[in-house]
Protein backbone atom coordinates (compact mmCIF):
# COMPACT_ATOMS: atom_id res chain seq x y z
CA UNK A 1 0.00 0.00 0.00
CA UNK A 2 2.78 2.34 1.06
CA UNK A 3 4.85 1.23 -1.90
CA UNK A 4 1.95 1.85 -4.23
CA UNK A 5 1.50 5.34 -2.78
CA UNK A 6 5.21 6.14 -2.97
CA UNK A 7 5.21 4.79 -6.54
CA UNK A 8 2.35 7.13 -7.41
CA UNK A 9 4.15 10.00 -5.71
CA UNK A 10 7.39 9.34 -7.57
CA UNK A 11 5.58 9.12 -10.88
CA UNK A 12 3.86 12.42 -9.99
CA UNK A 13 7.28 14.00 -9.23
CA UNK A 14 8.71 12.52 -12.42
CA UNK A 15 5.82 14.10 -14.31
CA UNK A 16 6.53 17.46 -12.74
CA UNK A 17 10.23 17.22 -13.56
CA UNK A 18 9.57 16.27 -17.17
CA UNK A 19 7.02 19.11 -17.45
CA UNK A 20 9.66 21.49 -16.09
CA UNK A 21 12.19 20.18 -18.58
CA UNK A 22 9.76 20.67 -21.46
CA UNK A 23 9.07 24.26 -20.32
CA UNK A 24 12.79 24.90 -19.93
CA UNK A 25 13.47 23.52 -23.41
CA UNK A 26 10.66 25.58 -24.88
CA UNK A 27 12.13 28.63 -23.15
CA UNK A 28 15.53 27.89 -24.57
CA UNK A 29 14.00 27.53 -28.03
CA UNK A 30 12.30 30.90 -27.98
CA UNK A 31 12.15 32.66 -31.39
CA UNK A 32 15.23 34.64 -32.31
CA UNK A 33 17.68 32.27 -30.72
CA UNK A 34 17.62 29.91 -33.65
CA UNK A 35 17.20 30.72 -37.33
CA UNK A 36 13.50 31.11 -37.87
CA UNK A 37 11.11 33.49 -39.54
CA UNK A 38 11.37 36.03 -36.72
CA UNK A 39 15.15 35.66 -36.65
CA UNK A 40 15.27 36.45 -40.34
CA UNK A 41 13.14 39.54 -39.88
CA UNK A 42 15.32 40.89 -37.05
CA UNK A 43 18.43 40.30 -39.16
CA UNK A 44 16.76 42.12 -42.08
CA UNK A 45 15.88 45.02 -39.79
CA UNK A 46 19.46 45.12 -38.57
CA UNK A 47 20.72 45.14 -42.18
CA UNK A 48 18.30 47.92 -43.08
CA UNK A 49 19.46 50.00 -40.12
CA UNK A 50 23.12 49.44 -40.97
CA UNK A 51 22.59 50.21 -44.65
CA UNK A 52 20.78 53.41 -43.77
CA UNK A 53 23.56 54.49 -41.38
CA UNK A 54 26.17 53.64 -44.02
CA UNK A 55 24.37 55.71 -46.62
CA UNK A 56 24.44 58.65 -44.23
CA UNK A 57 28.15 58.10 -43.51
CA UNK A 58 28.84 58.00 -47.25
CA UNK A 59 27.08 61.34 -47.63
CA UNK A 60 29.12 62.83 -44.80
CA UNK A 61 32.32 61.48 -46.34
CA UNK A 62 31.34 62.89 -49.71
CA UNK A 63 30.82 66.31 -48.09
CA UNK A 64 34.08 66.07 -46.14
CA UNK A 65 36.03 65.15 -49.26
CA UNK A 66 34.78 68.12 -51.28
CA UNK A 67 36.09 71.65 -51.31
CA UNK A 68 32.85 73.40 -50.40
CA UNK A 69 31.62 74.64 -47.06
CA UNK A 70 28.57 72.82 -45.76
CA UNK A 71 25.97 72.69 -43.00
CA UNK A 72 24.77 69.66 -41.09
CA UNK A 73 21.54 69.78 -39.17
CA UNK A 74 20.95 67.53 -36.17
CA UNK A 75 17.17 67.77 -35.78
CA UNK A 76 17.00 65.87 -32.51
CA UNK A 77 19.64 67.88 -30.64
CA UNK A 78 18.59 71.00 -32.59
CA UNK A 79 22.12 71.85 -33.59
CA UNK A 80 23.28 73.42 -36.85
CA UNK A 81 26.96 72.87 -37.64
CA UNK A 82 28.95 74.71 -40.24
CA UNK A 83 31.72 72.49 -41.55
CA UNK A 84 34.62 72.23 -43.94
CA UNK A 85 36.34 68.99 -44.89
CA UNK A 86 34.89 67.14 -41.92
CA UNK A 87 35.78 69.81 -39.36
CA UNK A 88 33.40 71.95 -37.35
CA UNK A 89 33.85 75.67 -37.93
CA UNK A 90 31.01 76.64 -35.63
CA UNK A 91 27.81 75.27 -34.21
CA UNK A 92 24.59 76.97 -33.22
CA UNK A 93 21.95 75.70 -30.84
CA UNK A 94 18.56 76.24 -32.42
CA UNK A 95 15.44 77.31 -30.59
CA UNK A 96 13.26 75.23 -32.87
CA UNK A 97 13.37 73.30 -36.14
CA UNK A 98 10.40 72.75 -38.42
CA UNK A 99 9.92 71.36 -41.85
CA UNK A 100 7.39 72.73 -44.30
CA UNK A 101 6.25 70.51 -47.13
CA UNK A 102 4.52 72.24 -49.99
CA UNK A 103 0.88 71.33 -50.30
CA UNK A 104 0.84 71.84 -54.05
CA UNK A 105 -2.11 71.28 -56.35
CA UNK A 106 -2.62 67.60 -57.17
CA UNK A 107 0.94 66.91 -56.06
CA UNK A 108 2.38 69.58 -58.36
CA UNK A 109 5.51 71.19 -56.90
CA UNK A 110 5.75 68.53 -54.19
CA UNK A 111 9.11 67.73 -52.62
CA UNK A 112 11.21 64.79 -53.82
CA UNK A 113 10.58 61.77 -51.61
CA UNK A 114 14.21 61.44 -50.57
CA UNK A 115 14.67 65.07 -49.54
CA UNK A 116 15.82 64.09 -46.05
CA UNK A 117 18.45 61.71 -47.39
CA UNK A 118 19.96 63.98 -50.02
CA UNK A 119 22.88 66.36 -49.92
CA UNK A 120 21.39 69.71 -50.86
CA UNK A 121 23.76 71.66 -53.08
CA UNK A 122 24.38 75.05 -54.72
CA UNK A 123 23.06 77.03 -51.77
CA UNK A 124 22.49 80.71 -52.52
CA UNK A 125 21.77 83.33 -49.90
CA UNK A 126 18.56 85.32 -50.21
CA UNK A 127 18.51 88.26 -49.92
CA UNK A 128 22.12 88.26 -51.09
CA UNK A 129 24.81 90.22 -49.30
CA UNK A 130 25.76 92.91 -51.69
CA UNK A 131 28.99 94.81 -51.35
CA UNK A 132 30.33 97.31 -53.80
CA UNK A 133 34.07 96.92 -54.16
CA UNK A 134 35.87 100.21 -53.74
CA UNK A 135 38.27 100.96 -56.59
CA UNK A 136 41.07 103.43 -56.06
CA UNK A 137 43.30 104.77 -58.79
CA UNK A 138 46.57 105.96 -57.28
CA UNK A 139 47.19 108.26 -60.24
CA UNK A 140 43.87 110.08 -60.05
CA UNK A 141 43.65 113.63 -58.70
CA UNK A 142 41.17 112.84 -55.92
CA UNK A 143 42.98 109.68 -54.81
CA UNK A 144 44.00 110.94 -51.37
CA UNK A 145 40.53 112.26 -50.59
CA UNK A 146 38.93 108.95 -51.61
CA UNK A 147 41.49 106.91 -49.66
CA UNK A 148 41.15 108.98 -46.51
CA UNK A 149 37.35 108.81 -46.64
CA UNK A 150 37.57 105.02 -46.41
CA UNK A 151 40.22 104.73 -43.72
CA UNK A 152 37.60 103.58 -41.24
CA UNK A 153 35.19 101.27 -43.04
CA UNK A 154 31.79 100.31 -41.58
CA UNK A 155 31.45 97.45 -39.12
CA UNK A 156 30.05 94.16 -40.45
CA UNK A 157 26.71 95.01 -38.83
CA UNK A 158 26.59 98.32 -40.67
CA UNK A 159 27.87 96.95 -43.97
CA UNK A 160 25.56 93.92 -44.07
CA UNK A 161 22.37 94.47 -42.08
CA UNK A 162 20.63 91.13 -41.73
CA UNK A 163 16.89 90.72 -42.26
CA UNK A 164 14.70 89.06 -39.65
CA UNK A 165 13.88 86.18 -42.03
CA UNK A 166 16.25 84.97 -44.73
CA UNK A 167 16.88 81.90 -46.83
CA UNK A 168 19.54 79.68 -48.28
CA UNK A 169 17.98 78.29 -51.45
CA UNK A 170 19.34 75.01 -52.77
CA UNK A 171 18.93 73.36 -56.14
CA UNK A 172 15.76 71.35 -56.68
CA UNK A 173 13.36 73.58 -54.75
CA UNK A 174 14.81 72.93 -51.30
CA UNK A 175 15.40 75.79 -48.92
CA UNK A 176 16.52 76.62 -45.41
CA UNK A 177 14.55 79.48 -43.89
CA UNK A 178 16.14 81.19 -40.90
CA UNK A 179 14.11 83.21 -38.42
CA UNK A 180 15.93 85.51 -36.03
CA UNK A 181 13.72 85.86 -32.97
CA UNK A 182 14.03 88.35 -30.17
CA UNK A 183 12.16 86.13 -27.71
CA UNK A 184 14.46 83.22 -26.93
CA UNK A 185 11.78 81.51 -24.84
CA UNK A 186 9.84 80.91 -28.03
CA UNK A 187 6.98 78.44 -27.80
CA UNK A 188 4.75 76.99 -30.49
CA UNK A 189 2.36 79.61 -31.91
CA UNK A 190 -1.27 79.42 -30.89
CA UNK A 191 -4.11 78.48 -33.26
CA UNK A 192 -4.80 81.97 -34.61
CA UNK A 193 -1.12 82.95 -34.85
CA UNK A 194 -0.50 79.70 -36.72
CA UNK A 195 -3.47 80.33 -39.05
CA UNK A 196 -2.27 83.85 -39.73
CA UNK A 197 1.23 82.52 -40.47
CA UNK A 198 -0.23 79.94 -42.86
CA UNK A 199 -2.25 82.59 -44.69
CA UNK A 200 0.86 84.73 -45.05
CA UNK A 201 2.83 81.73 -46.33
CA UNK A 202 0.14 80.93 -48.89
CA UNK A 203 -0.02 84.50 -50.16
CA UNK A 204 3.77 84.73 -50.31
CA UNK A 205 3.94 81.39 -52.15
CA UNK A 206 1.51 82.78 -54.74
CA UNK A 207 3.63 85.79 -55.58
CA UNK A 208 7.09 84.31 -54.95
CA UNK A 209 9.50 83.90 -57.81
CA UNK A 210 11.10 80.92 -56.02
CA UNK A 211 8.71 78.06 -55.45
CA UNK A 212 10.20 75.97 -52.69
CA UNK A 213 9.07 72.37 -52.51
CA UNK A 214 10.48 71.79 -49.07
CA UNK A 215 11.53 74.27 -46.48
CA UNK A 216 13.48 73.72 -43.29
CA UNK A 217 12.71 76.46 -40.83
CA UNK A 218 15.32 77.27 -38.21
CA UNK A 219 14.65 79.58 -35.26
CA UNK A 220 17.67 81.30 -33.72
CA UNK A 221 18.18 84.18 -31.30
CA UNK A 222 18.36 87.32 -33.43
CA UNK A 223 22.07 88.17 -32.86
CA UNK A 224 23.08 84.63 -33.84
CA UNK A 225 20.80 84.66 -36.87
CA UNK A 226 22.31 87.98 -38.00
CA UNK A 227 25.85 86.69 -37.58
CA UNK A 228 24.95 83.51 -39.44
CA UNK A 229 23.49 85.55 -42.30
CA UNK A 230 26.73 87.50 -42.65
CA UNK A 231 28.87 84.36 -42.58
CA UNK A 232 27.14 82.28 -45.30
CA UNK A 233 29.65 81.73 -48.10
CA UNK A 234 28.54 81.13 -51.69
CA UNK A 235 27.64 77.65 -53.00
CA UNK A 236 27.16 75.89 -49.67
CA UNK A 237 25.83 72.36 -49.25
CA UNK A 238 23.48 71.01 -46.60
CA UNK A 239 22.52 67.66 -45.12
CA UNK A 240 20.29 66.40 -42.35
CA UNK A 241 21.78 63.94 -39.87
CA UNK A 242 19.67 60.87 -39.22
CA UNK A 243 17.57 60.35 -36.14
CA UNK A 244 19.43 57.75 -34.12
Amino acid at each position, binding site marked *: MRRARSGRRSSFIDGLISLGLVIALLGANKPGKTPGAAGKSSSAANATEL*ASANAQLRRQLDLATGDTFYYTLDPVRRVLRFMYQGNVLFERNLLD*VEVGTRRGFLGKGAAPKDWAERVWSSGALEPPRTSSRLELD*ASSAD*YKTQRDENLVPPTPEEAYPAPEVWWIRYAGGMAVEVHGVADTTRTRPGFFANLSQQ*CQDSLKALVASNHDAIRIRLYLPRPQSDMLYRSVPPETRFT*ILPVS
Partner: protein
Amino acid sequence: MSFWQTIVTLPARRSVRVGISLFVIAFLGLFWTTGFNYQRLSKVEAASLRSPKGAAKVAPAVLQKEQRQLKTALNKKVIGANYIVIDVTNNRLVLRTRDAVLREAKCSTGSGIRLKEGGGKGREWQFDTPRGMFHVLQKVEDPVWKKPDWAFVEEQEPVPNNPNDRMEPDMMGEYGLHLGHGYLIHGTLYERLLGRSVTHGCVRLGRDDLRAVYAASKIGTPVIIY
Protein backbone atom coordinates in the same frame (compact mmCIF):
# COMPACT_ATOMS: atom_id res chain seq x y z
CA MET B 1 -28.76 93.92 -36.45
CA SER B 2 -25.62 91.97 -35.74
CA PHE B 3 -22.58 91.87 -38.00
CA TRP B 4 -23.33 88.36 -39.22
CA GLN B 5 -27.00 89.15 -39.88
CA THR B 6 -25.85 92.10 -41.96
CA ILE B 7 -23.50 89.88 -43.91
CA VAL B 8 -26.22 87.27 -44.53
CA THR B 9 -28.91 89.74 -45.58
CA LEU B 10 -26.75 92.17 -47.53
CA PRO B 11 -26.43 90.24 -50.76
CA ALA B 12 -30.12 90.10 -51.45
CA ARG B 13 -29.71 88.90 -54.99
CA ARG B 14 -29.00 85.24 -55.49
CA SER B 15 -26.27 85.88 -58.05
CA VAL B 16 -24.36 88.02 -55.54
CA ARG B 17 -24.54 85.25 -52.93
CA VAL B 18 -23.32 82.69 -55.46
CA GLY B 19 -20.49 85.04 -56.42
CA ILE B 20 -19.41 85.53 -52.84
CA SER B 21 -19.57 81.77 -52.19
CA LEU B 22 -17.44 81.05 -55.24
CA PHE B 23 -14.93 83.67 -54.13
CA VAL B 24 -14.68 82.12 -50.66
CA ILE B 25 -14.30 78.63 -52.13
CA ALA B 26 -11.62 79.86 -54.55
CA PHE B 27 -9.77 81.61 -51.72
CA LEU B 28 -9.83 78.53 -49.51
CA GLY B 29 -8.79 76.33 -52.44
CA LEU B 30 -5.89 78.61 -53.19
CA PHE B 31 -4.94 78.70 -49.54
CA TRP B 32 -4.87 74.93 -49.22
CA THR B 33 -2.98 74.31 -52.42
CA THR B 34 -0.27 76.95 -52.25
CA GLY B 35 1.02 76.98 -48.69
CA PHE B 36 3.16 74.69 -46.61
CA ASN B 37 2.40 72.11 -43.97
CA TYR B 38 4.79 72.69 -41.10
CA GLN B 39 5.73 70.23 -38.42
CA ARG B 40 8.67 69.39 -36.17
CA LEU B 41 11.52 68.08 -38.26
CA SER B 42 12.49 65.20 -35.99
CA LYS B 43 9.13 63.48 -36.54
CA VAL B 44 9.09 63.89 -40.30
CA GLU B 45 12.66 62.93 -40.81
CA ALA B 46 12.28 59.76 -38.78
CA ALA B 47 9.35 58.78 -40.94
CA SER B 48 11.05 59.69 -44.19
CA LEU B 49 14.26 57.77 -43.52
CA ARG B 50 13.86 54.81 -45.75
CA SER B 51 16.22 51.92 -46.18
CA PRO B 52 18.38 51.95 -49.29
CA LYS B 53 17.24 49.53 -51.98
CA GLY B 54 18.44 45.96 -51.53
CA ALA B 55 19.75 46.66 -48.05
CA ALA B 56 18.11 43.60 -46.54
CA LYS B 57 19.88 41.34 -49.06
CA VAL B 58 23.35 42.29 -47.82
CA ALA B 59 24.70 40.41 -44.82
CA PRO B 60 24.95 42.54 -41.65
CA ALA B 61 28.60 41.52 -41.25
CA VAL B 62 29.44 43.03 -44.65
CA LEU B 63 27.58 46.23 -43.75
CA GLN B 64 29.31 46.43 -40.37
CA LYS B 65 32.70 46.12 -42.08
CA GLU B 66 31.72 48.86 -44.52
CA GLN B 67 30.59 51.05 -41.61
CA ARG B 68 33.95 50.65 -39.86
CA GLN B 69 35.76 51.63 -43.06
CA LEU B 70 33.55 54.68 -43.57
CA LYS B 71 34.00 55.83 -39.97
CA THR B 72 37.77 55.43 -40.25
CA ALA B 73 37.84 57.44 -43.49
CA LEU B 74 35.69 60.15 -41.91
CA ASN B 75 37.82 60.30 -38.74
CA LYS B 76 40.97 60.73 -40.84
CA LYS B 77 39.51 64.01 -42.10
CA VAL B 78 39.01 65.40 -38.62
CA ILE B 79 41.77 67.57 -37.20
CA GLY B 80 42.96 66.03 -33.96
CA ALA B 81 44.69 69.08 -32.44
CA ASN B 82 44.02 72.84 -32.19
CA TYR B 83 42.94 74.66 -35.31
CA ILE B 84 42.09 78.25 -36.20
CA VAL B 85 38.84 79.36 -37.85
CA ILE B 86 38.47 82.82 -39.37
CA ASP B 87 35.19 84.41 -40.46
CA VAL B 88 36.18 87.18 -42.87
CA THR B 89 32.78 88.88 -43.04
CA ASN B 90 32.18 89.08 -39.31
CA ASN B 91 35.90 89.60 -38.61
CA ARG B 92 36.04 86.90 -35.95
CA LEU B 93 38.81 84.44 -35.20
CA VAL B 94 38.20 81.27 -33.21
CA LEU B 95 40.84 78.98 -31.79
CA ARG B 96 39.26 75.60 -31.24
CA THR B 97 39.53 71.84 -31.08
CA ARG B 98 37.10 69.33 -32.51
CA ASP B 99 34.83 69.63 -29.48
CA ALA B 100 35.52 72.97 -27.81
CA VAL B 101 36.11 76.64 -28.49
CA LEU B 102 39.33 77.68 -26.74
CA ARG B 103 39.32 81.38 -27.60
CA GLU B 104 37.21 83.80 -29.60
CA ALA B 105 38.67 87.09 -30.82
CA LYS B 106 37.89 90.11 -32.92
CA CYS B 107 40.20 90.41 -35.88
CA SER B 108 40.58 92.47 -39.03
CA THR B 109 40.64 90.97 -42.49
CA GLY B 110 40.96 92.15 -46.09
CA SER B 111 39.28 95.44 -47.03
CA GLY B 112 38.29 94.22 -50.48
CA ILE B 113 39.64 97.42 -52.03
CA ARG B 114 41.03 97.27 -55.58
CA LEU B 115 44.05 99.51 -56.01
CA LYS B 116 45.15 100.57 -59.49
CA GLU B 117 48.63 101.92 -60.00
CA GLY B 118 47.55 104.05 -62.94
CA GLY B 119 49.91 106.14 -64.98
CA GLY B 120 49.94 103.57 -67.80
CA LYS B 121 51.63 100.86 -65.71
CA GLY B 122 48.48 98.74 -65.50
CA ARG B 123 49.31 97.00 -62.24
CA GLU B 124 46.48 96.45 -59.81
CA TRP B 125 45.95 94.68 -56.50
CA GLN B 126 42.89 93.36 -54.71
CA PHE B 127 43.03 93.30 -50.93
CA ASP B 128 41.04 90.17 -50.07
CA THR B 129 41.70 87.52 -47.45
CA PRO B 130 41.64 84.20 -49.28
CA ARG B 131 39.17 81.49 -48.22
CA GLY B 132 39.86 77.79 -47.72
CA MET B 133 42.25 75.57 -45.81
CA PHE B 134 45.71 76.89 -44.91
CA HIS B 135 48.41 75.80 -42.47
CA VAL B 136 50.83 77.66 -40.25
CA LEU B 137 54.06 77.42 -42.25
CA GLN B 138 56.31 79.51 -40.04
CA LYS B 139 56.17 81.16 -36.61
CA VAL B 140 58.09 84.41 -36.19
CA GLU B 141 58.79 86.61 -33.17
CA ASP B 142 59.01 90.37 -33.75
CA PRO B 143 58.25 90.10 -37.46
CA VAL B 144 59.57 92.81 -39.76
CA TRP B 145 57.31 93.92 -42.58
CA LYS B 146 59.02 93.84 -45.95
CA LYS B 147 56.82 96.35 -47.73
CA PRO B 148 55.62 95.15 -51.12
CA ASP B 149 55.23 97.45 -54.15
CA TRP B 150 51.57 98.18 -53.44
CA ALA B 151 52.44 99.68 -50.04
CA PHE B 152 54.44 102.41 -51.85
CA VAL B 153 51.87 102.85 -54.60
CA GLU B 154 49.19 103.26 -51.94
CA GLU B 155 51.21 106.04 -50.31
CA GLN B 156 52.02 107.56 -53.72
CA GLU B 157 55.70 107.06 -53.04
CA PRO B 158 58.31 105.76 -55.49
CA VAL B 159 59.05 102.04 -55.22
CA PRO B 160 62.64 101.76 -53.84
CA ASN B 161 65.38 99.76 -55.51
CA ASN B 162 67.23 99.06 -52.28
CA PRO B 163 65.60 96.15 -50.39
CA ASN B 164 66.61 97.68 -47.07
CA ASP B 165 64.30 100.61 -47.79
CA ARG B 166 61.36 98.20 -47.72
CA MET B 167 61.93 97.01 -44.16
CA GLU B 168 59.43 98.28 -41.58
CA PRO B 169 59.86 96.94 -38.03
CA ASP B 170 57.27 97.27 -35.22
CA MET B 171 54.29 97.29 -37.58
CA MET B 172 53.16 93.69 -37.16
CA GLY B 173 53.11 93.28 -33.42
CA GLU B 174 54.96 90.72 -31.36
CA TYR B 175 54.34 87.64 -33.48
CA GLY B 176 53.62 86.52 -37.00
CA LEU B 177 52.13 83.25 -38.25
CA HIS B 178 52.90 82.73 -41.94
CA LEU B 179 50.11 81.09 -43.96
CA GLY B 180 51.85 81.22 -47.35
CA HIS B 181 51.61 83.49 -50.42
CA GLY B 182 52.48 86.50 -48.23
CA TYR B 183 49.48 86.14 -45.92
CA LEU B 184 50.04 86.21 -42.15
CA ILE B 185 48.21 86.37 -38.88
CA HIS B 186 49.95 89.17 -37.00
CA GLY B 187 49.47 92.02 -34.54
CA THR B 188 48.57 95.63 -35.18
CA LEU B 189 49.18 99.17 -34.06
CA TYR B 190 45.54 99.98 -34.80
CA GLU B 191 43.59 97.88 -32.28
CA ARG B 192 40.66 100.31 -32.46
CA LEU B 193 40.02 99.05 -36.00
CA LEU B 194 39.68 95.40 -34.96
CA GLY B 195 36.34 94.01 -36.11
CA ARG B 196 36.49 96.00 -39.38
CA SER B 197 37.75 94.95 -42.78
CA VAL B 198 40.82 97.13 -43.14
CA THR B 199 43.79 94.96 -44.06
CA HIS B 200 45.52 94.17 -47.33
CA GLY B 201 44.65 90.48 -46.93
CA CYS B 202 46.46 89.55 -43.73
CA VAL B 203 44.61 88.81 -40.50
CA ARG B 204 45.29 91.26 -37.67
CA LEU B 205 44.74 90.40 -34.02
CA GLY B 206 44.89 92.31 -30.76
CA ARG B 207 47.96 91.81 -28.60
CA ASP B 208 46.52 89.43 -25.98
CA ASP B 209 44.67 87.33 -28.54
CA LEU B 210 47.79 87.11 -30.71
CA ARG B 211 49.83 85.89 -27.74
CA ALA B 212 47.25 83.17 -27.01
CA VAL B 213 46.93 82.08 -30.65
CA TYR B 214 50.71 82.05 -31.12
CA ALA B 215 51.21 79.93 -27.98
CA ALA B 216 48.52 77.45 -29.00
CA SER B 217 49.75 77.02 -32.59
CA LYS B 218 52.63 75.10 -34.04
CA ILE B 219 54.00 74.57 -37.51
CA GLY B 220 51.29 72.75 -39.44
CA THR B 221 48.33 74.01 -37.38
CA PRO B 222 45.38 74.19 -39.80
CA VAL B 223 43.77 77.57 -40.45
CA ILE B 224 40.33 77.49 -42.08
CA ILE B 225 39.14 80.78 -43.54
CA TYR B 226 35.57 81.33 -44.77
